[in-house]
Each structure stands twice: as C-alpha cells, then as structure tokens.
C-alpha cells in the first residue's frame, strides 16, 4: 500500500509540474464550456433591427415600442418599402427586419389574426434563430397582456423566413456534449499519454524490473486522473448551473455515479491505447482520431444520429459517448431516474468491463 501511495504521489508531481497538462486538465474544460455556452447562447443584446410598418396603427406602434424598449433590440432604421429590405441587409446595417402587414389592427380585431413577418439575416444562423425566438417571445407576451384585457382572444401570427432548428433551441443541449468530450479528453488522452511517456523516457523499464505489479502501475497511473476527472465533472456542472442557469432536473447523485462509470470506461480506453502505442505522439494521435472525432461527430452531440446514414448509425452504437450523452441528457434535462436509463447504463458497464479486460490482457509484463 505504501508503494502504491508513493506511486500516486509521484503522478501528482508530474501533473502539477507540467504546465501543458495542467492547462488541458483545468483550462480546457472551463474554456470549452464557456466557449460553447456563450458562442451558442440565446443571450443577445442590442441587436440592430429595422421596421417596415405597412399599417402604422396603434397596435403596430405598441409592438414596435415594446421591442424598442427591450434590451435585446434597438431599432436602427425605419424602412418604407419591401425594396429597402434588401438594401439594409446588404449594407449590413441590421440583423433583422420586422414587416407588419397592412391593416394590422383591423385584421386583428376583425379576423382575430394578423401577420408579422420576421426576416432574419441567415448568414449567422444561430443569431438569426435566437432573434426570431426573442421576437416571438415578445409578441407572445404582448398577446398575453392584451388577451387579459380584451375578452376575445386573438392571435398574432409570426412568420419566420428561416428554417427553425430545434437542436439549437437551447444552450442546455450543449452541456452534456461538452461534458462528455472533456471527460473523454482528460481521462483517455491524458492517461494514455502519461503511460506512454514512461515508455518513451525509459522509466517503464525500471518500473517493470521493480517488484511493482503491473496492475499497481496501471491503477497508480490512472487513479489521479479518476480524481481529476471527477473534479472536472463537478466544475462543469457547477458552471452550467451558475453561469448558464441550467437546472439539473434529475438526481445529482445518479449523475455523479453515471459520470464515474463513464470516466472509468474512458480510462480503460486510455490504457488500451497506451498498450498499443510506443510514443506519446502516437498515443495522442490515436486518442484524437480514434476517440475525440467519433465523440464529436458520431455521438449525437452535434449531428443528430437519426439523420445519419444507416452505417454510421450502426457505428455510433459502439461509441460509449453516445450512451453517456443519452444518459446525462435524460438526467439533466428530463429529470429521469435510473428506471428510464438502465439499458444505456448497462451497455456502458458492458463496454467498460470489456475494455478493462482487454487492456489487462494486452498489458505486457515484459517489453514485447
């Protein structure tokens, strides 16, 4: 046991003395979550828009004022004809134009229905989406207020001239994905690199010739990263809760357990990679190509699995990250308990056991 503790102590020295790995360990998770969070956030501020009002009546005036009063938009231009719309967009003055139809109030009262067109600059699709969401929200709020006063319910129909992408609806969707990537990166890549570094330095030879048992070496190498990965998971969850105000619907305890399970499966993959690579460079390449890319592309994090070609859908099944994302999305966003995700959990357990068994089998007690 003393040997083991000595070993772990040494591992921590390595980690804390290497600025690069420290950065990957702690800088990256925070940077990534903030980057993803803010880059794809629905927070917008003071976006310049233009108004094309064909009615110029009390209702359109009120709505325009409401929009102008919100901190999200500022009305930069009032245009007078459809032809001007193209020109303001081309000049890049505004990100969106709100087009009120003719006789807006009249239609609203007569037919209980009026149309407002939201034209957004789709060169930046994320912002475009967000803008239309916000305008919608303001319109809906206005209707609620009005409908309280007037007994007859009426409806303002927004027409958006952009395809709505439900996956981008919320930053919340990204937290599970980013968390998965980071845990994968820290656990698999860092362990495989730290084990191959010993091979490259030649210290592995000395460790092999010592009375340390192979599993002690492996556990000793892996243990610090389990610990650090858990800290990372906690940091990510805290960041999501406090910075992005993302509620975690389900049990935090269950989330923790599932995360530990995923961390262990990633570590097992890391060990597996280290048994087949001789240099840190190879280990890094295999981790990036073999783990990170599939996690980003095939796990359903960015591209929905259901819209992939069938062969890719099949491949996605062998990626542990896919199952983990389903699990944590369930816990964090839907608030489900183990009874809804036991199948995925079981698959992940199976994969972990398989990887550990394989790496134990592949681990060499000698140099070849």
């Amino acid at each position: 046991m003393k040997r083991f503790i000595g070993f772990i102590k040494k591992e921590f020295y390595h980690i804390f003395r290497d600025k690069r790995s420290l950065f990957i360990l702690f800088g990256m998770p925070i940077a990534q979550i903030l980057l993803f969070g803010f880059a794809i956030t629905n927070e917008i501020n003071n976006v310049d828009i233009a108004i094309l009002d064909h009615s110029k009546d009390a209702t359109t005036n009120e709505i325009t004022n409401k929009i102008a009063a919100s901190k999200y938009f500022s009305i930069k231009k009032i245009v007078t004809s459809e032809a001007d719309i193209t020109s303001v967009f081309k000049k890049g003055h505004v990100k969106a134009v709100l087009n009120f139809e003719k006789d807006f109030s009249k239609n609203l009262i007569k037919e209980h229905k009026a149309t407002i067109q939201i034209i957004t600059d789709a060169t930046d699709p994320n912002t475009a989406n967000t803008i239309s969401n916000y305008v919608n929200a303001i319109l809906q709020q206005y209707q609620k207020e009005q409908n309280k006063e007037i007994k007859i319910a009426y409806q303002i129909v927004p027409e958006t001239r952009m395809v709505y992408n439900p996956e981008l609806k919320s930053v919340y969707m990204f937290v599970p994905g980013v968390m998965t990537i980071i845990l994968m990166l820290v656990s698999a890549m860092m362990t495989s690199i730290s084990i191959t570094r010993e091979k490259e330095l030649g210290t592995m030879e000395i460790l092999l010739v010592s009375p340390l048992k192979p599993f002690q070496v492996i556990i000793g190498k892996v243990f610090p990263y389990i610990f650090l990965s858990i800290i990372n998971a906690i940091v990510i969850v805290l960041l999501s809760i406090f910075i992005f105000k993302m509620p975690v619907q389900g049990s935090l305890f269950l989330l923790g357990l599932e995360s530990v399970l995923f961390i262990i499966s990633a570590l097992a993959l890391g060990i597996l990679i280290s048994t087949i690579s001789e240099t840190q460079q190879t280990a890094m390449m295999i981790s990036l190509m073999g783990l990170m890319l599939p996690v980003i592309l095939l796990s359903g994090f960015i591209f929905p699995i259901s819209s992939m070609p069938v062969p890719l859908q099949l491949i996605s099944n062998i990626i542990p990250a896919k199952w983990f994302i389903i699990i944590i999305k369930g816990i964090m966003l839907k608030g489900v308990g183990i009874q809804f995700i036991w199948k995925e959990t079981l698959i992940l357990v199976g994969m972990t056991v398989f990887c550990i068994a394989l790496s134990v089998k592949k681990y060499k007690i000698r140099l070849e």
Partner: protein
Amino acid sequence: MSITVSNISKSYKNVKALQNISFEVKPGELFGLIGPDGAGKTTLFRVLTTLLVANEGSATVAGFDVVEEYKNIRNSVGYMPGKFSLYQDLTVEENLNFFATIFGTTIEENYDLIKDIYVQIEPFKDRRAGKLSGGMKQKLALCCALIHKPKVLFLDEPTTGVDPVSRKEFWEMLKRLQQKDITILVSTPYMDEAALCDRIALIQDGKILEIDTPKAIVKHYPKQIYNVRATNMYQLIYSLKKYEHNHSVYPFGEVVHYTDSRTDFNPKDLKLYLESNDLNNVEIEKTVATIEDTFMELAK
C-alpha cells in the same frame, strides 16, 4: 554463480540480436560486456532483467530462472538502462524517495550503500533531475538502482556521453561497490574501460568473440604490433595498406598499429619501403597489444 547464461539466442524479425551466447559471472565479480553499438548488449541486459524472453537458451540471475521466476529477480536486482531513465520533472530527492518506496524500502534503511555516491549529489537534492549535468544524472541513476540493496547490479552503458572526469569517478564507485558484495554486470563501448573489469566478454554482432580477464585477452594477441609514425598520416596509411606483407593496418591516434604477415619480419625493410614512398620521419617501434587491437583482430 550470480549469473549464468547458456546458449541464449534472440531475434527481432530478421535481425539476429544474440546468437548462442553463454557465460557465467561469479558472485562479487565486476564483469564487463565490451562491444560497439548494435552488438546486442542491451538485448542481453533486457533478457537478464526479465524484460525480454529469449528465443532459445536459458539464464539465471541470483539463482532464479529469468522466465519462470522473473518476479524473484525483479525483487533482487538493480537496473540502470542505457538511456537516462529517471523522472526529469522530479527533484533528486523525490526520485530517490520514489524508487525507495516502490521497492518497499527507505533512503535511511540503505543509506550506507549509497552514501559515498549520494553525498556528491546531496547539495543538489532539491534540483529537478532534468537540470543536472550528465555526470550528476548518472550518479543519481546509480543511487536509484542501488537503493534496495540489490544482489546483482545491471549497468547498461553507464558512461556513454559522460565526460572523462565523471567516467573515472564512476568506475571508482563501481570498484567500491564491489567490496560490498554486489555482483556487477556492466556494458560499455569504450575499450579503454575494459581494463577496469575483473573479466570481460568482447561482443559484436550478437556473438561473443572472447571471454577472459583483460590481461589474458591482450596476451592472446597472435602477432607483434609495431607503432609506425611518419609526417603525413594519410600517405602513411595508404602506403602501408599497399605493402604486400601487411597483416593489419589501423590508425591508432598519432600512430599506426601495423602487423606483418611474415614470421621473419624486419622493421628495417618496412622503413626502407616507406621512405621510398616519399614518407619522411619514419619511425617504427614495437608496442604491446591493447584490448582494442584484440577486438579488431577477432572481429576481422
């Protein structure tokens, strides 16, 4: 016997790294494996330290079989690989502590053994190993290999890339360790270090050329060697190689070591021949063979 090696062969793909190697090392002996890079020294060390399994043959270290009882060997040997293999980002003291802990001991417990060496690096104990000079690194590596009081010590090219002063100190340390009943197997590409071992094996291309004490080995040299000097070294070598009776011609620092194929060789004939080839200040004198001469004669 501390180490027995019998008929060990080892191949990688199509390279025969070791071919039918056999030798024995007695307890407390300082045994040297002398040979150039690629001779198979490191492979042999790895077989003996249980890191590789030989294709053929058997070997024991400290009485244990290198394949069957590898765990016992790992408890009782010290190994210093050819490349500096310590943690560069740990300090001198942390490295030593680490190796002590994984062998289940402490620095204090075996301090006697390493004291002589450790005092020389102790002033730098808080320095990272990566920042030490070549000679210091080597001393630290030796301390780490000794920290668990091994019965047999394996040193693979400990003096490669180290300056002469540190090399000399290192060999003095080995001599002192020998007094403490540690069997030492050391490898080196430097022929001049061979004389410092009790017995040596000359090794090239995976084969042992000869095993004996350094003194006996040079005595076996079959010919009389002559030192030949002249003003122009290039012309001298060129002319000697053209000389029909030459047996071997090797530049040896400022002189050329020459042996003749005839039994009744008279240096005066050679001198005349060289002078007729426009060489000036020709000097020819008898000299004794060195281990390097023997090595080249055997490897020829």
